[in-house]
């Protein structure tokens, strides 16, 4: 009876019967391990202490602890002598060898399988004659000999040292062989088993201890972990080490440029994997999965980070603790994503958090401190005071601005206050000042510069602090990881602050001889952000923002209050009666109007895995996530908003002030409570047939429910000291000081609830032949709650298929030493996007009760769109992975093609149908692209090394639906969807200069000039416009360099975007018709060079004021005159880290210590445009156009 007990499914019935007859015996002897596809299992050490036990028992124990398959002759093992063994933490070789010490059995290793057999007579004879010595040659990973390497014979406790040729001769090898341990500084310790058949010489290749070019061995799909060299799909993995190299608070900043094919847009807080798949605004949002489940988000579109208020320069709140991330896997092609089915069309980001390992407890502490100066406002390219005054003067002269003092009696309270400069202009008209006085005053005003005061009083240095503490450890049966973190982010705007606190604990324990494994995870996150809009507002474009000459503080540093809603004299007359002050000052406002948002996120995961057989296990997991958010918008009584509100509701009756609006501040609070619960049942099967067929199948079902409840309320008359509020009937009419009546309006929001359910079945199978040829396939079926969509359109199957060829393992390549890995991948599959906005059925929105009729009212919120369906993306991917010259050069290359059909888009529609915008999903889009990541060692000399990573991607697409034939005027400047063109194609008018009235002219296709007073007809089409290029960069790249000298490591991170264009902002907040200009004038420097007199058209292109009209400004703003190339290369970061050598650390206390210093946001290295504009931060009328300033980040990381 000599049998190979590896599972064989092709056995015939009779064979099966016999198989079951011997079942009891078989169960005992079924020593084929369940192969967990995790590298850590393979490295496991063996600990066995047994006396006089059976050999079979010992072998089973070895199998259990190592995961190796052991094949042996049953009778020989059963009849073996009792075994006494005492080994602790030894290798599998040694353990097997020890267990066979007294036996007449021999063994050999074949890959991950150990074969034990009785030595035949021939073997015994040959043993006697073949060499009893082996020559060991030790090399490093790039083939250099390693003289001086230590070779330790563990079996016989002997020590050898490699000679000048890197060689050691081992003699008198015992029959059962021996275990050698090879060590060399800077390399990982290797253990080998050598016996008389090992062959000589025996080459050992040492791997570097700190594997910079470490190939990521495992990718995670959220449902399973796959060994990277078996995956057919396109994945990109980023490890925690890589994240740590860029210690920014914002995760997107840490990731930018590091993943080929994935675009991280820090400015707009968005992530895009392989470009967009649809036309819509929310298009391209990847699904975010954390520890196997979709991350909670009330809108069901989770983001990695959130930024409060103005996205630029404000505090960042991370939605997860970056320090807890073990690795992030980006699923890019259909084969990778199809397991997520209906929501995977835009790619999936799978985040795995850190888990404990079977090792001694270790404590890790990290601290990061970052500081950056506020940006200089002088870079804004705004008009100076003199230029601004000049513009105001022209607007006054031409009647765009009228004198509020001339408002008729009784109506002056409606007349908005004018600026300081225009006041002097009007004074002369009113006869209260002479032209000389005016000119002197305007000269003084023109000489001012208010920007320094804004920098000094409304802005500050941005500072962030990140603390992290974690400890982890474990034994063979259970492990744990517990961490806590705190981040405080203070942005450049004063009074704003963001705080994050994290707690995380997860454990894994196995029972019943590791048959059952229980996983638990407990995660809590708290975030708080305080937002004060004062600084942002001063630089934006509102009534309270500052003109270039407006000052915040007077000579003695007292705040200058300015009335906004009417003239100072009127304000004074009211305050004399006892009204609250009407003035606004941004510095003062910093103290009063603070908007706080607090968020608590709880995440609980539990999972149970049970091994049914060695090749089959069942897994049940539950995830429950809760989010509790609380927002407060507090306008204290002294805030501008509350003073104006209270004043408006104050009237004088019988000489006394009557407060119709409760006297005090206003507080708006809102609560949001959302949940996300998922349950998943999954069967995992993994087995090998005849040592060459490896099959892995998972199949499962999953249900998920997500929902939220939102409420809000407004309180008036709030007293900050007592917390008391005033009472008021919100719908009762009260008299305002304007003389008309008003009401506060509904102060209690309704209870908004939403609830959605998802149901999925999925399966994924892979087959490997000889570890060379792989085939994978997956199917998934999805159904979800969507009102109005018929089930046939709602529930969808998705599938994928892929193949992989590990060419390097072929015989004809395995001989070539410089090829470590070479494999080719090809996949095809589908993924979808749930139509979140449109429906096939008319949706109703019940809006409450009409105030006049008292009747409940509703409105139609979404029309029934009969043409609406589902959005699906089919994609093809061809990939190549290689590793050459012993890790000196490795990389991946992928080409892909995507076709999305049924694209949803909110499109301009004919309002004659009742809707001026409509959700369509009948578009089709073809996308394609390529991306590659190259890792290589550029230079190594002595202690110095230079390693580089270059990531590059190209992505383009083409709208293939001919229905998107837009009319020219809605196309110009908007980057619309156009058939035959990529998304975001920018069409512009062809600029023909200004006419002699200073207004825009454009060319048609025949170069005829069209004046701004001529309407475009349907004869003016796309052919009359100029195609300016794409607004989204098709090419993007990241270039990371690591320089190492001894214990020092320097990193230089460069990113680039190429091939796109942008429109320079020129006119913002400029009159578009002859008449009263309301609002605030723009400050863009271009306004200073506007047309003023006939003849100016020869020297300027900026339309003048006199005959200004809507078409003129619109055509100018959307003309080719303002289009610029946006290509740019940016130096993101230079960092320096020092790993403190062990010898300098107190022995036995600190395991490792790293200190680092980084400079971030170093600015552009190169840009294509000649105007000095940073294309990623295009200057607009608002402040948000400034690139972030250099920030200095210092870090410390210690392990104990």
């Amino acid at each position, binding site marked *: 009876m000599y049998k190979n007990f590896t599972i064989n499914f092709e056995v015939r019935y009779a064979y099966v019967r016999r198989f079951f007859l011997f079942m009891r015996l078989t169960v005992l002897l079924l020593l084929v391990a369940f192969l967990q596809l995790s590298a850590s299992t393979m490295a496991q050490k063996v600990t066995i202490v047994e006396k006089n036990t059976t050999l079979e028992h010992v072998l089973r124990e070895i199998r259990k602890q190592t995961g190796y398959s052991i094949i042996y002759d049953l009778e020989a093992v059963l009849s073996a002598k009792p075994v006494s063994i005492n080994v602790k933490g030894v290798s599998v070789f040694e353990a097997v060898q020890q267990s066979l010490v007294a036996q007449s059995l021999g063994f050999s290793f074949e890959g991950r399988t150990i074969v034990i057999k009785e030595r035949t007579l021939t073997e015994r004879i040959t043993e006697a004659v073949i060499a009893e010595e082996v020559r060991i040659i030790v090399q490093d990973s790039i083939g250099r000999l390693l003289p001086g390497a230590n070779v330790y014979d563990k079996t016989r406790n002997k020590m050898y040292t490699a000679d000048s040729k890197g060689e050691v001769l081992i003699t008198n090898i015992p029959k059962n062989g021996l275990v050698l341990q090879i060590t060399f500084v800077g390399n990982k310790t290797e253990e080998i088993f050598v016996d008389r058949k090992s062959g000589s010489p025996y080459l050992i290749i040492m791997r570097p201890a700190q594997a910079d070019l470490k190939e990521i061995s495992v990718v995670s799909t959220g449902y399973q972990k796959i060994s990277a060299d078996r995956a057919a799909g396109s994945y990109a993995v980023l490890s925690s080490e890589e994240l740590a190299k860029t210690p920014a608070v914002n995760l997107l900043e840490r990731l930018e440029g590091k993943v080929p094919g994935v675009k991280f847009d820090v400015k707009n807080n968005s992530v895009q994997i392989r470009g967009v798949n649809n036309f819509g605004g929310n298009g391209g949002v990847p699904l975010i999965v954390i520890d196997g489940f979709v991350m909670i988000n009330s809108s069901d579109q989770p983001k990695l980070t959130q930024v409060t208020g103005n996205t630029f320069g404000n505090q960042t709140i991370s939605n997860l603790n970056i320090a807890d991330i073990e690795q992030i896997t980006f699923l890019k092609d259909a084969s990778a994503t199809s397991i997520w089915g209906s929501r995977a069309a835009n790619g999936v980001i799978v985040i795995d958090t850190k888990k404990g390992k079977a090792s001694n407890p270790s404590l890790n502490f990290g601290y990061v401190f970052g500081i950056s100066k506020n940006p200089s406002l002088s870079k804004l390219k705004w008009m100076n005071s003199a230029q601004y005054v000049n513009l105001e003067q022209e607007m006054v002269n031409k009647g765009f601005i009228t004198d509020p003092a001339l408002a008729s009696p009784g109506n002056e309270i409606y007349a908005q206050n004018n600026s300081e400069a225009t006041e002097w202009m009007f004074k002369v008209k009113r006869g209260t000042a002479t032209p000389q006085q005016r000119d002197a005053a305007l000269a003084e005003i023109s000489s001012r510069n208010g920007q320094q005061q804004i920098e000094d009083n409304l802005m500050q240095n941005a500072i962030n602090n990140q603390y992290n503490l974690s400890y982890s450890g474990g034994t063979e049966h259970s492990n744990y990881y517990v961490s806590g973190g705190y981040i405080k982010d203070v942005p450049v705007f004063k009074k704003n602050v963001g705080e994050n606190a994290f707690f995380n604990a997860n454990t894994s324990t196995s029972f019943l001889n590791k048959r059952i494994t229980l996983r638990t995870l407990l995660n809590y996150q708290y975030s708080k952000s305080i937002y004060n809009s004062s600084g942002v507002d001063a630089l934006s474009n509102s009534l309270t923002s500052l003109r270039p000459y407006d000052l915040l503080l007077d000579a003695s540093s007292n705040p200058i209050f300015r009335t906004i809603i009417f003239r100072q004299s009127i304000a004074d007359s009211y305050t004399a009666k006892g009204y609250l002050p009407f003035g606004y000052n941004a510095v003062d406002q910093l103290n009063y109007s603070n908007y706080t948002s607090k968020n608590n996120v709880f995440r609980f995961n539990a999972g149970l895995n049970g091994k049914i057989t060695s090749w089959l296990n069942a897994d049940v997991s539950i995830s429950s996530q809760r989010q509790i958010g609380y927002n407060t918008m507090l306008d204290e009584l002294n805030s501008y908003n509350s003073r104006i509100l209270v004043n408006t509701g104050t009237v004088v009756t019988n000489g006394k002030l009557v407060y119709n609006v409760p006297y005090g501040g206003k507080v708006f609070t809102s609560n949001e409570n959302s949940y996300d619960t998922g349950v998943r049942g999954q069967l995992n099967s993994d087995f090998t047939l005849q040592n060459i067929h490896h099959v892995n199948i998972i199949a499962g079902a999953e249900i998920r429910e997500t929902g939220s409840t939102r409420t809000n309320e407004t309180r008036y008359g709030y007293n900050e000291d007592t917390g008391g509020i005033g009472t008021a009937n919100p719908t009762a009419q009260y008299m305002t000081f304007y003389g008309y009546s008003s009401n506060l309006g509904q102060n209690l929001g309704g209870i908004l609830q939403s609830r959605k359910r998802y149901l999925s079945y999925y399966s994924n199978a892979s087959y490997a032949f000889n570890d060379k040829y792989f085939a994978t396939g997956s199917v998934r079926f999805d159904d979800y709650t969507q009102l109005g969509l018929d089930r046939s359109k709602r529930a969808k199957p998705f599938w994928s298929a892929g193949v992989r060829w590990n060419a390097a393992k072929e015989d004809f390549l395995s001989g070539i030493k410089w090829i470590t890995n070479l494999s080719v991948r090809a996949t095809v599959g589908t993924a979808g996007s749930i139509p979140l906005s449109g429906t096939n059925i008319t949706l109703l929105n019940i809006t409450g009760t009409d105030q006049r009729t008292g009747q*409940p*009212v509703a409105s139609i919120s979404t029309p029934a769109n009969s043409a609406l369906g589902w959005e699906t993306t089919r994609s093809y991917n061809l990939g190549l992975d290689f590793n050459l010259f012993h890790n000196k050069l490795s990389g991946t290359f992928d080409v892909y093609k995507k076709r999305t059909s049924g694209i949803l888009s909110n499109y301009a529609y004919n309002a004659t149908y009742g809707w001026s915008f409509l959700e369509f999903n009948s578009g089709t889009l073809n996308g394609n692209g390529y991306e590659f990541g190259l890792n290589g060692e550029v230079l190594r000399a002595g202690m110095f090394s230079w390693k580089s990573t270059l990531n590059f991607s190209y992505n383009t697409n083409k709208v293939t639906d001919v229905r998107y034939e837009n*009319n020219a005027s809605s196309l110009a400047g908007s980057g619309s969807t156009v058939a035959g063109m990529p998304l975001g194609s920018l069409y512009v008018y062809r600029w023909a200069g200004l006419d002699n009235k200073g207004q825009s002219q454009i060319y048609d296709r025949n170069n005829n000039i069209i004046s701004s007073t001529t309407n475009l007809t349907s004869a003016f089409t796309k052919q009359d416009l100029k195609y300016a290029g794409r607004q989204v960069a098709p090419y993007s790249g990241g270039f990371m360099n690591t320089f190492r000298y001894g214990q020092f490591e320097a990193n230089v991170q460069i990113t680039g975007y190429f091939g796109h264009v942008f429109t320079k902002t020129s006119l913002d907040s400029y009159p578009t018709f002859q008449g009263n200009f309301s609002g605030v004038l723009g400050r863009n420097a271009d306004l200073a060079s506007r047309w003023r007199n006939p003849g100016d058209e020869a020297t300027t292109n900026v339309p003048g004021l006199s005959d200004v009209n809507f078409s003129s400004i619109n055509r100018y703003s959307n003309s080719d005159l303002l289009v610029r190339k946006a290509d740019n290369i940016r130096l993101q970061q230079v960092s320096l880290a020092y790993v403190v050598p062990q010898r300098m650390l107190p022995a036995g206390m600190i395991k490792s210590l790293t200190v680092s210093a980084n400079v971030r946001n170093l600015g552009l290295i190169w840009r294509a445009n000649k105007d000095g504009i940073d294309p990623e931060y295009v200057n607009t009328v608002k402040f948000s156009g400034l690139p972030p300033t250099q920030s200095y980040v210092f870090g410390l990381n210690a392990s104990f």
Partner: protein
Amino acid sequence: MRTKYLILFAALLILGTGCRKYVEIEQKSIRTLKYTTDFRYVMNNIQTIEGTCSYPVFSGDDTEITDPSRILVMDDIQSNVYTWSAKYTNDSQSDSDWDRLYKTIYTCNEVLAGVRDSQGGTNADKEQIYAEALVHRAYTYLILVNMYAKQYNSATSSTDLGVPLLLTPNLYTSLKRQPVAAVYAQIQKDLTESVSRLPALPDYNMKPAKVSAYAILSRTYLNMRDFNRAGLYADSSLTLQSTLLDLQKYATAPGTVPPRLNDPEVLLSKTTGVTVTAVSISNDLLTSMGTRDLRYQIFTGARSVFGSAFSGAFTGRASSRYLLNGEFVIVNGPSVPEMMLVKAECLARSGDAAAAIALVNNLRKKRFLPANYTDLPTGTADAALQTVVDEKRKEFIGRGMRWFDQKRLSLDPAFAQTKTRTFKNQTYTLEPTSNRYLYPIGDKYILLNPEVEQNPR
């Protein structure tokens, strides 16, 4: 071991069988039009149903804007409307009246398509809601066809281009303009169909009832120059409701003029949709009214009433009714005075001057203080007709209603006049037969749906 598999697969199956029910759950805060009350709520929504058109306020000859300050705050579209320009909107601008009116059409079509199959209401409820939608739709088409198409002319109406006639909520039908006759036929059909399903009088005047259906029919036939039927329907409407506001009560307290919901004259509340502020009244109209007319005193205001809208040099008056009761709304739907004047016009046209003038006098009695009131004398039928037309212009100052009369009467040789107005030092002329009586269709809509034909200019 087999049992283990069985249990596992059974568990999966159980999970599977409930799948459809698992995801098909009711969602709060979002609903489909399912219950009869849902349709009721939609028809209750004044914000989407009540607004009609505001541009005609600028077109009609009751308006005259000459003050430079007032001209300065006019936007480009308003200026174009005021000067009867060839185009009102740029190729990318929206015609807000068109948008608003067709939104109402859509809403009505949605109700008409679904209310009869709705759940939870009685048949009578459903029929009434159905009828209300018919009335709103008919009224809206009446406004549309009179703004954007030629005045109804029985000789040419079957070929004259009307407006796109959408009768279902389908978002993919053709927008080809149907003949004027077809639009009118639809209006008549909708209204006559609605009458039997409606109560005589509404619960409140924002809901259609027989009284307003008759009034709209009357206005429809008046536009079709079927004066006999116009008079009969006006009479039917007046039989049901004929209450007038007695302006004498408000002479000293204009602020107490009732809001439109309580206005006894309003038969169906319809408004301009947006408030056009400080629209100055033409001088010849002011002169013809005289200062003793309470409509002059209460519903128009001098410069001081309008803040900084007018320059110091402005000596005229502007329509101020929208300021009175804090509603800030310009009401221009069918009303009792309108029906009286339609009836009077029909009587005068039929030669009954005495009856026509008697009706006018009944109205005027409520428009003057007793001390200032004298009966108008009965003259010839032609004179009576002129009196009625003039009275209507006074009664509805600043509401845009005059424009429709002006357009209608331009086909009447006796009333056909050439209008001129001066704006920013340019003079504009409107001949009685001018194509400029038709509003241009927004180029934006034509560019989106080329089947929409532009009006000749």
